């Protein structure tokens, strides 16, 4: 566990959507991280004013590099800077990665159900990548499913890579488009409901490890539906983004 502030360098940037960007950071001395952890990023203004925010790690890299994907919030203080202004070669102060609960352990061979609301896909992507990268541990054989609720096709993070991952017989990715369906789709857009959820996720009889990440209201509602459908609360781990959010 790395708990002090360290200087990280931005070594590449990649747009995910119009509002979101992935930053690859190099943290000297870092030796990998666990899938699902987050880092704190501290920005300091020229007059010494500082602001700190937490961002989930998106990558599953073994060395001293990691990715964060940041979505610009309308009223954000730190996110607009990270999405619009930071450039390759810039330095940022980073604390972590931290977190020992909302993490997937590659030695766990349980089936895994991931459920993302919007940018909540970020730590779940780290789990999918860790699963794909690790061909030796027991967890590699675990079936992984991602249910990804998102406004429309333009808002999907990691689109091409998710399509590649879903080619594995062990991985299944299902999108729920809440506002705009893809062109040619016969399914109208709409929010996730309990019935769709029940038919889209691994059944309680499989006893999957469930990870849910998204805005608070999304996570609350989905977790309630799952427990009502017979999933054990002890098998459901949640990570909630602060502030106000929409229901599914």
């Amino acid at each position, binding site marked *: 566990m790395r708990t002090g502030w360290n200087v990280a360098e931005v070594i590449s940037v990649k747009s995910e959507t119009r509002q979101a960007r992935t930053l690859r950071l190099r943290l000297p001395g870092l030796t990998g991280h666990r899938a699902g952890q987050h880092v704190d990023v501290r920005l*300091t203004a020229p007059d010494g004013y500082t602001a700190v925010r937490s961002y989930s790690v998106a990558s599953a890299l073994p060395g001293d590099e990691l990715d964060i994907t940041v979505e610009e919030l309308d009223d954000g203080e730190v996110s607009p800077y990270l999405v619009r202004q930071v450039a390759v070669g810039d330095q940022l102060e980073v604390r972590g990665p931290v977190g*020992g609960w909302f993490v997937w352990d590659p030695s766990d061979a349980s089936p895994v159900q991931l459920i993302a609301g919007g940018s909540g896909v970020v730590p779940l992507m780290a789990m999918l990548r860790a699963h794909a990268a690790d061909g030796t541990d027991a967890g590699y054989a675990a079936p992984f499913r991602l249910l990804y609720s998102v406004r429309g096709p333009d808002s999907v993070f990691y689109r091409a890579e998710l399509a590649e991952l879903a080619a594995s017989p062990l991985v299944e990715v299902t999108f729920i488009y809440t506002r705009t369906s893809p062109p040619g789709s016969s399914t109208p857009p709409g929010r996730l409901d309990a019935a769709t959820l029940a038919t889209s996720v691994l059944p309680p009889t499989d006893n999957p490890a469930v990870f849910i990440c998204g805005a608070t209201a999304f996570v609350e509602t989905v977790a*309630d539906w799952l427990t009502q459908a017979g999933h054990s*609360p002890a098998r459901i*781990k949640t990570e909630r983004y602060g*502030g106000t959010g929409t229901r599914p």
Partner: protein
Amino acid sequence: MGIISPGFLGRRRRDDPALPPGQYLTESFPVLSAGPTPRIAPEDWEFTITTETGAVHRWNWDEFLALKQDDVTTDIHCVTSWSKLGTSWRGVSLDTLFESVESEAEFTMAHSYGGYTTNVPLEDLLDGKAWIAHQFDGETLEPEHGGPARLLVPHLYFWKSAKWVTGLEMLRQDEPGFWESNGYHMYGDPWREERYW
């Protein structure tokens, strides 16, 4: 001072002396939980204090509400960096609950419905520093914020204020609770930024 980010200006918030280091103000009330929200009906709720000798002091909902009620206005500080100033709560002081408890143990473990635990030294619960709260802002405490009742220990980071609390276990030695076993600090003083190990 750390690395300067040229062009970063920030929100220019007023420099509030009530804000511990590394915290920012929020007007909303974010939620941080590790799993699904337990739904506990007040008639099924109980609160216990279990001493190191195994003696159990028990209150059901009606008995709990019949105790002396305190109205508390306080600042709260979450380890995820938000602080909320001047929040108002109603609940029962731990001083009231501990009046009849005989114990020599100096540590406690709070236990919640759903299995959450967090450790708090006894001295941080007494002398008007902590409550079992059941109202927020004049309203019944919502389940997602810990209702029917949560521990309120506002001088420590808010993960110590266990939601859905159902008991305190007296311990002779300090032991880590849930988040304390998952990377968070054993004590959690926001003014000393005791966030992580």
